[in-house]
């Protein structure tokens, strides 16, 4: 089955990104397809490669990047939510005159249309947030 997931909370502030991750791992293990993971609101903070948690803690951002690499996951960050919170890819950095970018590997910045498409294309859309 084709599943889409939406994450609305940041890492380390709420359990939502952990629950979403564990759900996706279980879905992949059961042979389902993850059509897209859409990060909205504070959820965009899952996509900064500058995150450096203590070594004995889970690295939520790297965990997403590694899962994306292993399963070719489409991790999409909402552009408007990302701009507000300082999540920037090279194109957005250039466009807005920023001196650097911080998007983590496996993530891409796009718009709400990607969420709508996921809702249409996937068999189920699951929302994780506060």
């Amino acid at each position, binding site marked *: *089955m084709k*599943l889409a997931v939406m994450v*609305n909370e940041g890492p380390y502030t709420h*359990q*939502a990104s952990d*629950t979403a991750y*564990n*759900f996706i*791992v*279980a*879905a992949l*293990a*059961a042979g*389902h397809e993850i059509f897209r993971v859409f990060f909205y609101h504070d959820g965009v903070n899952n996509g900064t490669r500058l995150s450096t948690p203590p070594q004995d803690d889970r690295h939520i951002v790297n965990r997403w990047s590694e899962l994306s690499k292993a399963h070719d996951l489409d991790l999409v960050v909402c552009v408007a939510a990302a701009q507000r919170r300082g999540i920037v890819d090279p194109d957005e950095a250039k466009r807005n005159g920023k001196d650097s970018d911080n998007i983590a590997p496996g993530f891409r910045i796009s718009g709400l249309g990607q969420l709508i498409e996921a809702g249409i294309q996937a*068999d*189920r*859309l*699951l*929302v*994780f*947030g*506060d």
Partner: protein
Amino acid sequence: MLHTVNKSSFESASLKICLGLAKSGSDILLIEDGVYGALAGTIHATMLAEATSAVSVYALGPDLKARGLPEDRLISGIKVVGYDGFVELACANDKVQSWL
């Protein structure tokens, strides 16, 4: 429909509202702090115990464990599932409603 409730019934009315609106035959999965609602003997236990005749209620095992809630203290009729069970419930129902 699968309803997921992630708030403790001591913190939010989402479980109560969910139970009030869920159609007979629905599945309700308690996740994150929502698992506190599965405890027997609390002031909210009757509400959920009465609902189990019309809807199927599940609690996410890893979230119970993370909060130190033993499975033998749950309201009878509540089934404990893992993330694999969460995936199965999401696929078995045609829609998933998150009560955030």
